C-alpha cells in the first residue's frame, strides 16, 4: 500500500477505534482540520455522533480557521434535531457571523420551530444576518414570514434576491403579484420568474401572458413560459385568450413555441447522460421547457402546435408526462385528434394513439390504423383498442394475434385481455388448441388469465400438462383463478412438476389461494430436503397460517442458512404466539444476517413493552440492526423513544440517521426542541 494511503487509513482507524472519551474527542477535533478531505468527512460524522453541540458551537465563531469552522458547521447540521435547541440559542449571539451561520444550519436542518426567532432577525442591523435569516425562512417554508419578505423586495438588491428565492420556496400565492412586478426590468427578473413557477398562482397568469408578448429574447421567454405554464389551470377563462393571442403571433411567440416543441431551443435540462446514447442525449421524453410549451399548446387550444406536442408521446418517458397533461386539460385534443391520427408523420400518429383521449367515436380511425404501413402504429392501435373494450375489433385483433410477430402480437394480446370475457367466449377457443404455435398459445392463455374468462377451463386444465414449461406456468396461473377442488388438486400435483420454475410458480399461486389441502401439503413438503423447501418456507410465510409456526421453528435447527433466513421472515409474517420470543433468541446467534432478520421481524411486531430491547439494539455494532431499532422506535408512539431517536439521528451510517429523522419528523411540533 502506498505510504500516503497507509497514513490515511491509520488516521481513519484512530477515529473508529474505541478509546476513552477525552482521547477520542481530541482525535476527532484534530481530524476536523486534517489536510485530507476524506479524513475530515469521517471526523465530521464522528463529531456529529459524539460531541455535544455546545462543544462544537465555539468553532463556528473561529474566523481564523475556515477549515475547522466549516467542519463544525457540517457536524452541527448533521446532528439535526439534536442540535436545534443549542443552535437556536446561537441566534442571540453578539457575533453576527455566529448568528449568520446559525441561520444557515437551522435552514439546512429545516428547523420549523425556529421561524419566530428567524423572523425577528429580519430587523438585524447586519445585512449578512438578514440575508441568512431570509434564506432559512425560505427553507423552513415559513408562511408567516411572507408579508415581511414582500416588504424586503423593495430593499437592497442582495436581500431582494434572497427574498425572491425564499418566496418561491414558501409557495404562497400572496407573493405572486409583487413578484410579477419585478419582471422584466429588475435585477431579480429571472429569480422572480423561477419563484412564480414554483408558486404556480393562477392570478399570475394574465400578467405573465402580457409579459410573454413583450419579451424578445429566448433568455427571458423561456422562464416566462415556464412560469406561465405553471400558472395555467383547467377551466380558467384566460385559456382561450392564451391560445388566440399566441396563434395570432405566428412570427413571434408561436414560432418560438414551435421551436421548443421540436427540440430546437437549448436550455433543456439534460437527462441522465449515462443512460442516453450520444445522438439522443437530452432529448428523450422532453425537459421542463418542452412540457411547459406543451401545456400552453394544449390548454390554449393551439391546434397548429398539436402535431409537435403529441410527437413527444412516442416513448415511455414522453407518455409518462404527456398523458396526464392531456387528461388534466380534458378534451384538449378532441378537435384535432382526427387529423393527428391521419398525419403523414408516423411519430404524430403514434403519439396521438398513445396519449389522445380516445373514445368509441374514434373506433373506425383506430381500426384503420390496424392496417397502417408502420408496425409501430399497428401495435399502438392495438394498445388503444384495449381500454375502449371495442368488441367490434376482436376479429382483427385475433387475426393479428395469429399472424403478426413481436410487439404487434403482444399488443394484440394486451388489447384482447381488456375485452369482456363473454365477447371472447365465441371465438377464442381455437387459439388454445395444442396444434397452435406456442407463442400464440402462450399469449392466448395470458388473455384468458387477464380477462377472467371461465369458458375455457377444460382447455386450460389440459394445457397444464403441456410439454412446454412456459405454457404450464401460464396455464397454472389461470388454474389458480378457478374455484373448486379440481383446481386445487391440479395445483398441488404441480408441486411434483419436473421443472423447478413451475413448482415455484405454483407455490406462489397456492400462497395466494389458501384453503383446502394447501396448508397440509406444504407442511408435509417441509420434510423434503431439496431445493424446493426454500420456496415452501416462503410460501408458508405468505400464507400466514398460525399452524405453520411450530413446524417452522422445529425445522430451524436443522435448516441451511438461506432457509433459516426465510424461516425467520416467515415467522415474523405469521406472527403467532411465541414468535417474538423465538426471534429474541435469534439475536443471541453469531451469524449477523440471522440477527438482522430477527431484528427486522421484531421491529415489525414491536410493542411499547419492547422499548428496552430496541434501546439495546440502537447500540448494536451492525448498522442494519440499528436501522431496525430506528424503524421500530418510529412505530412506538411513546415519549421515551425521543432521546434514543435523537442518538440514532446522528448515526455514522446515513441510512440509520435518515430512518431516525423520519421517525422524529412524524412527531407533533410541540415535541421538538424549544426555540431560543
Amino acid at each position, binding site marked *: 500500500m502506498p505510504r500516503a494511503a497507509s497514513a490515511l487509513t491509520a488516521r481513519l482507524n484512530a477515529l473508529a477505534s474505541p478509546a476513552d472519551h477525552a482521547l477520542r474527542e481530541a482525535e476527532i477535533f484534530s481530524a476536523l482540520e486534517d489536510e485530507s478531505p476524506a479524513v475530515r468527512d469521517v471526523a465530521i460524522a464522528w463529531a456529529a455522533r459524539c460531541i455535544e453541540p455546545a462543544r462544537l458551537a465555539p468553532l463556528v465563531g473561529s474566523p481564523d480557521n475556515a477549515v475547522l469552522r466549516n467542519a463544525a458547521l457540517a457536524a452541527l447540521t448533521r446532528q439535526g434535531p439534536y442540535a436545534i435547541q443549542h443552535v437556536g440559542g446561537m441566534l442571540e449571539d453578539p457575533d453576527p457571523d455566529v448568528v449568520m451561520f446559525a441561520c444557515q444550519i437551522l435552514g439546512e436542518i429545516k428547523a420549523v420551530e425556529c421561524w419566530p426567532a428567524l423572523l425577528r432577525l429580519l430587523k438585524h442591523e447586519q445585512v449578512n444576518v438578514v440575508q441568512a435569516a431570509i434564506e432559512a425562512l425560505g427553507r423552513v417554508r415559513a408562511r408567516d414570514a411572507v408579508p415581511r419578505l414582500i416588504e424586503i423586495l423593495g430593499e437592497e438588491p442582495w436581500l431582494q434576491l434572497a427574498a425572491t428565492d425564499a418566496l418561491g420556496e414558501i409557495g404562497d400565492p400572496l407573493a405572486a403579484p409583487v413578484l410579477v412586478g419585478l419582471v422584466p426590468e429588475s435585477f431579480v427578473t429571472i429569480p422572480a420568474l423561477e419563484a412564480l413557477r414554483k408558486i404556480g398562482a393562477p392570478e399570475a397568469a394574465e400578467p405573465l401572458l402580457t409579459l410573454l408578448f413583450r419579451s424578445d429574447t429566448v433568455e427571458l421567454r423561456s422562464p416566462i413560459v415556464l412560469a406561465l405554464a405553471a400558472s395555467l389551470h383547467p377551466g380558467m377563462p384566460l385559456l382561450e385568450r392564451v391560445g388566440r393571442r399566441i396563434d395570432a403571433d405566428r412570427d413571434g411567440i408561436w414560432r418560438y413555441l414551435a421551436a421548443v416543441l421540436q427540440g430546437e431551443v437549448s436550455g433543456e435540462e439534460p437527462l441522465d447522460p*449515462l443512460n442516453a*446514447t450520444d*445522438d439522443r442525449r437530452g432529448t428523450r421524453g422532453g425537459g421542463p421547457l418542452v412540457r411547459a410549451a406543451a401545456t400552453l399548446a394544449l390548454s390554449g387550444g393551439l391546434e397548429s402546435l398539436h402535431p409537435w406536442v403529441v410527437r413527444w408521446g412516442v416513448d415511455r418517458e414522453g407518455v409518462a408526462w404527456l398523458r396526464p397533461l392531456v387528461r388534466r386539460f380534458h378534451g384538449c385534443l378532441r378537435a384535432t385528434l382526427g387529423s393527428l391520427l391521419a398525419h403523414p408523420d408516423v411519430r404524430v400518429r403514434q403519439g396521438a394513439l398513445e396519449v389522445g383521449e380516445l373514445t368509441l367515436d374514434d373506433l373506425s380511425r383506430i381500426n384503420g390504423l390496424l392496417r397502417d404501413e408502420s408496425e409501430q402504429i399497428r401495435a399502438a392501435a392495438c394498445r388503444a383498442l384495449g381500454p375502449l373494450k371495442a368488441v367490434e375489433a376482436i376479429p382483427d385483433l385475433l387475426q393479428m394475434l395469429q399472424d403478426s410477430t413481436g410487439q404487434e402480437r403482444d399488443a394484440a394480446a394486451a388489447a384482447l385481455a381488456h375485452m369482456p370475457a363473454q365477447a371472447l367466449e365465441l371465438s377464442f377457443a381455437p387459439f388454445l388448441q395444442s396444434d397452435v404455435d406456442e407463442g400464440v398459445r402462450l399469449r392466448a392463455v395470458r388473455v384468458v388469465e387477464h380477462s377472467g374468462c371461465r369458458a375455457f377451463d377444460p382447455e386450460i386444465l389440459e394445457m397444464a400438462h403441456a410439454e412446454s414449461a412456459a405454457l404450464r406456468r401460464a396455464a397454472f396461473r389461470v388454474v389458480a383463478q378457478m374455484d373448486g377442488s379440481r383446481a386445487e388438486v391440479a395445483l398441488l400435483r404441480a408441486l411434483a412438476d419436473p421443472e423447478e420454475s413451475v413448482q415455484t410458480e405454483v407455490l406462489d399461486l397456492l400462497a395466494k389461494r389458501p384453503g383446502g389441502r394447501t396448508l397440509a401439503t406444504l407442511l408435509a413438503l417441509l420434510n423434503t430436503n431439496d431445493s424446493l423447501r426454500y420456496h415452501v418456507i*416462503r410460501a408458508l410465510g405468505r400464507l400466514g397460517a398460525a399452524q405453520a409456526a411450530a413446524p417452522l421453528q422445529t425445522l430451524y435447527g436443522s435448516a*441451511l442458512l*438461506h432457509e433459516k433466513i426465510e424461516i425467520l421472515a416467515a415467522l415474523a409474517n405469521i406472527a403467532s404466539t411465541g414468535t417474538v420470543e423465538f426471534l429474541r433468541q435469534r439475536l443471541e446467534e453469531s451469524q449477523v444476517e440471522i440477527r438482522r432478520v430477527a431484528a427486522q421481524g421484531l421491529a415489525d411486531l414491536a410493542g411499547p413493552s419492547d422499548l428496552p430491547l430496541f434501546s439495546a439494539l440502537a447500540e448494536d455494532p451492525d448498522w442494519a440492526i440499528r436501522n431496525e431499532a430506528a424503524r421500530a422506535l418510529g412505530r412506538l408512539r411513546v415519549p421515551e423513544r425521543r432521546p434514543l431517536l435523537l442518538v440514532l439521528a446522528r448515526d455514522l451510517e446515513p*441510512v440509520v440517521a*435518515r*430512518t431516525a429523522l423520519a421517525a422524529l419528523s412524524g412527531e407533533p411540533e410541540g415535541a421538538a426542541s424549544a426555540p431560543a
Partner: protein
Amino acid sequence: MSEVAEADWKLIADFVRERFGLSFEGARRDILEARLRSRLCDLHLHTFREYYHYLSFHPARDAETSELSRRITNNETYFFREPHHFAFILNQVIPPLHSVLRTRPLRVLSAGCSSGEEPYSLVVNLVDSGLELQGYRWEIDACDLNATRIEQARKALYEPGSLRVCDDEVRQRCFIRSGERFQLKDRYRKGVNFFQSNLATPTVGLGWAGYDVIMCRNMLIYFHDDAFLSLIGHFSRLLLPGGYLLLGHSESLVDRMPAFEPLFLNGTMAYRRTQEAT
C-alpha cells in the same frame, strides 16, 4: 422517487460495490433498480432485501452473481465510437515505436470491451492503415465483466445498431450481411483475444508493464472512488513506461493520479504513464 426501502437498497448497492467496484448512486440508482426488477420477478422474490439474501446465501448464489454482473453491465456500444482515439493510436502512438514494433507486436488492452466493437474497430483501423503489409503485428487483449458479452464478441455478429455510424462502404468492406445482422469479416478479427474479467478484482494475469495502450472508455464513470483509484493504479502497472491510457470523453485523471501525465494532442486527451511510475 424510488419505493425501495433505503436499507434494502444499501444492502444491494454495497454488494455490487464490493463485488464489482461499481457504484449506482444518484441518478444511476434508477438504472440498477430497473435492471434488477425483472430478475426479482423471475426468481419470485418481492424485495431487494430478499434478493440480497439470495445473492449472499442461496446455494445458487454464484450463478446468480454472474447473472447480476450480466444485468448491470449491459451497456450498448458501437463501432468506431470516439474515432479520434483510433487516429491517436495510428498517428501518435505507433510512429515513435516503429523500430520496436519490428521485433514485437503492438500490445493493446481493451478494458470493458463489451461485445467487441472497440477492439475490432481498432483492428479495422490498423488493417486499413496498411501496417499489416509493412510487417507489423498486434495483440489486443479485450476483457469485460459480462461473460455473455464476451461470447457475443467472439462470434462477431452484430445488430444494425452496432453499425450506426458505419456508412454503406464500410458495411460492405468490413461485414457480411447475415439476415438482419452483420458478421465481421475474418481479416478484421485477427490478433484479438477476448476473456472475461472483473476489473475490480482481476483474477486473470495480465502481466506487468506489457501494454503500449490501454483503452478503458466510458466504464470508469460507473466505478466508485476506491475502485477507480485501485483500477487506475493497476493500469499504471500494466502499461509500459511511456504507454498511453485512453479514457472516455467524460472521464478524467487530471490531478488525480501522479503516475499519469495528461496530454492534449490534436483534440484528443490521453494519459501517458510517467517513467517513474511503478
